[in-house]
């Protein structure tokens, strides 16, 4: 594992599988009456949110608390431009208060990169501008794996047990070796994922494309040409402007939120036209293969990119995604913070 989780693109396949498998195990613990693990007792996790996002912040908070970490929530609305202290000064303040990890959500792409240069603690990206949202991609991959019945890696069970029980320095190596041995297992090899909507401005899309590629999935983007990056032909995915043509060839369909501000900036003529061409309604859902699932990172615009009957259908994984988010974030905190303490090595 890297020291920080800033970009899904930085993960190796083994790292990604390790996180998914660890989350699988932690999810099982969430079903127990006592959900709490003592792993991160005495460690401090700061949720540094410069952008409103109640759901992501609560998810990280729940994850950290279930691992017994102390959690400090720091919300600073808007960007730091011209008002209040700079991100750097905020970072140095948190550092002085002994933050072991900082979970950062920021409107500026790259803010977590900058933060990682200023503090010693671990940095976890909870969404930066239009760049990345790696834990969302991880929880999406986790959800796909569960819902499509793909097997977790062979080494998953016992991963945590080994870590918790052992005392020597070899466990990290052991876990990695395990990962290497199960290369090809537990991934999303060959799964056809279609991502629909505002790819241009979407950090969820960027992280998902990166991680899905790492895990072996085949990604297709569907969007009006105005909402695709100009150099998208260099990305490792297919691009289509025709949702109906892609639906029958999709195992997973991931709908992106249409941001309010796009609706008035000439990216498309009207919300209704967008909805007609790129929205997922019941008729379109019927074109999907039997086993296909429908995902959405939330919050949804019902009636715009997704019809209510689709969002509430059994194919929809939207509520599961939220629950899985806690497990994934626990796994990330556990692997970034817990491993160092257990093995006594600087990570």
């Amino acid at each position, binding site marked *: 594992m890297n020291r920080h989780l800033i970009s899904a693109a930085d993960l190796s396949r083994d790292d990604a599988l390790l996180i998914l498998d660890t989350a699988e195990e932690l999810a099982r613990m969430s079903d127990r009456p006592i959900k709490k693990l003592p792993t991160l007792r005495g460690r401090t996790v700061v949720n540094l949110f410069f952008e409103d996002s109640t759901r992501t912040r609560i998810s990280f908070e729940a994850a950290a608390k279930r691992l017994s970490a102390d959690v400090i929530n720091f919300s600073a609305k808007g*960007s730091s431009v011209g008002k209040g202290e700079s991100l750097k000064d905020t970072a140095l303040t948190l550092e002085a208060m002994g933050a072991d990890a900082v979970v950062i959500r920021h409107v*500026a792409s790259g803010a977590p990169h900058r933060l990682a240069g200023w503090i010693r603690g671990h940095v976890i990206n909870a969404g930066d501008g*239009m760049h990345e949202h790696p834990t969302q991609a991880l929880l999406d991959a986790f959800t796909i794996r569960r819902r499509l019945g793909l097997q977790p890696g062979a080494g998953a069970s016992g991963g945590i047990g080994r870590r918790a029980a052992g005392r020597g320095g070899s466990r990290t190596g052991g876990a990695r070796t395990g990962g290497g041995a199960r290369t090809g297992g537990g991934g999303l090899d060959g799964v056809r994922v279609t991502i629909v909507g505002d790819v241009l401005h979407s*950090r969820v899309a960027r992280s998902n494309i990166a991680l899905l590629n790492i895990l072996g999935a085949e990604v297709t983007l569907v969007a009006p040409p105005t909402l695709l990056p*100009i150099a998208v032909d260099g990305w490792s995915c297919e691009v289509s402007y025709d949702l109906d043509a892609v639906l029958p060839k999709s195992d997973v369909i991931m709908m992106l939120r249409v941001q309010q501000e796009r609706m008035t900036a000439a990216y498309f003529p009207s919300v209704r036209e967008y909805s007609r061409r790129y929205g997922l309604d019941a008729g379109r859902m019927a074109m999907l293969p039997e086993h296909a699932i429908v995902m959405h990172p939330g919050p949804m615009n019902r009636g715009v990119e997704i019809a209510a009957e689709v969002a509430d259908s059994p194919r929809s994984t939207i509520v599961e995604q939220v629950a899985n988010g806690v497990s994934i974030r626990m796994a990330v905190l556990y692997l970034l913070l817990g491993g160092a303490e257990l093995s006594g090595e600087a990570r």
Partner: protein
Amino acid sequence: MEDTVNGAAGTWLLRNVTLPGGQRTDLLLHDGGIAEAGSRLTAAGAQVLDAGGLIALPGLVDLHTHLREPGREDAETIETGTRAAALGGYTAVHAMANTEPVADTAGVVEQVWRLGREAGHCDVQPVGAVTLGLGGTRLAELGAMADSAARVRVFSDDGRCVSDPLLMRRALEYVKAFDGVIAQHAQEPRLTEDAQMNEGAVSGRLGLSGWPAVAEEAIIARDCLLAAHVGSALHVCHVSTAGSVEIIRWAKSKGWRVTAEVTPHHLLLTDELAEDYDPVYKVNPPLRTAADVEGLRAGLADGTIDCVATDHAPHPAEAKDTEWADAAFGMTGLEIALRAVQQAMVETGLLDWAGVADRMSVRPAVIGRLSGHGILPAAGSPANLTLYDPAAAPEPVDPAAHASKSRNSPFRGVPLPGQVVATFLRGTATVLDGKATS
């Protein structure tokens, strides 16, 4: 007799300099001019500088410098900026108008001009704003600035584009009365709203709003046509794309009065540097692709791009120690420009030293309507000279050692060849042994 009692001023005998064309000669500097050129000169009382291996370039002229004074003396002052310029081999710089207050009146341009003279490190030629307060709606009093003691001939809203086509037409027409030139910052504003970096593969990956090449090229094309229509002179600031070079090449082929500049950073650096979101690489226009760098170098080599201009844009640390989107645009450049040009153009065989003298001194002086600068060293020419050692081993650039008040150099830690050994302004050494004399 030779002695060294006169300090930086007085009579100088430069032994064995290499002229831009390659010939070796001695130069005797006296009374602000080059009194003699030839071999084995002698002069009683002259200070002697052994210049074997050094190239004597005509003192460099920068068409595009932000000295920040008045208003942002925390970033740079005329004193620190011109000292940095002298250390970079410059004897004249054009001070851009986007100060606070804006240089849009005779009063402000005269103040800048006078402060430059008092500092004495190099000549400061103020650039006047095209529009009042850089507001883009009303012409500033261009004639008053032209008639002032500062004798302004170059007008620019640099930092902003004169995007209104009618206003641009009028400005081009109006300055014909006093042989002025409009230096345009070519940036279509609607196409670059919230733009953060070059629009391309890297911006798409990093999630930073794109600044497309077409936003520069569309304005350049329009302005070339306008300049042709009214028969006036257009200068294009900081050309950054290969497409812009093609448009300018076409305009020049028509015989239109269009000139252009390129910065040292656009000749060497690409948008890949944004990868870690370090805003030291944030600049406007943005760093482009390797193909653009290649096009710009070719354009400078064949003369389509007339000159190198630094766009020296100092910023205090806090303006760059931030998130990319919040950071200021701009890079320092005065102290490394010549070395960067050696790296980009000479080491690659695209320009020889005569070419460097032309692109960094002769042509910018002509475009800026500067008298006394941009004249090749010869008997009778002004003693504005830069002695440069091209064989100095490449040294990593250390912004902390710069005379500029600001540290935002994108070449931090990058080894660049060459060294400015001495600079003479009208026969007085402003730099000796690579150090400022005052």
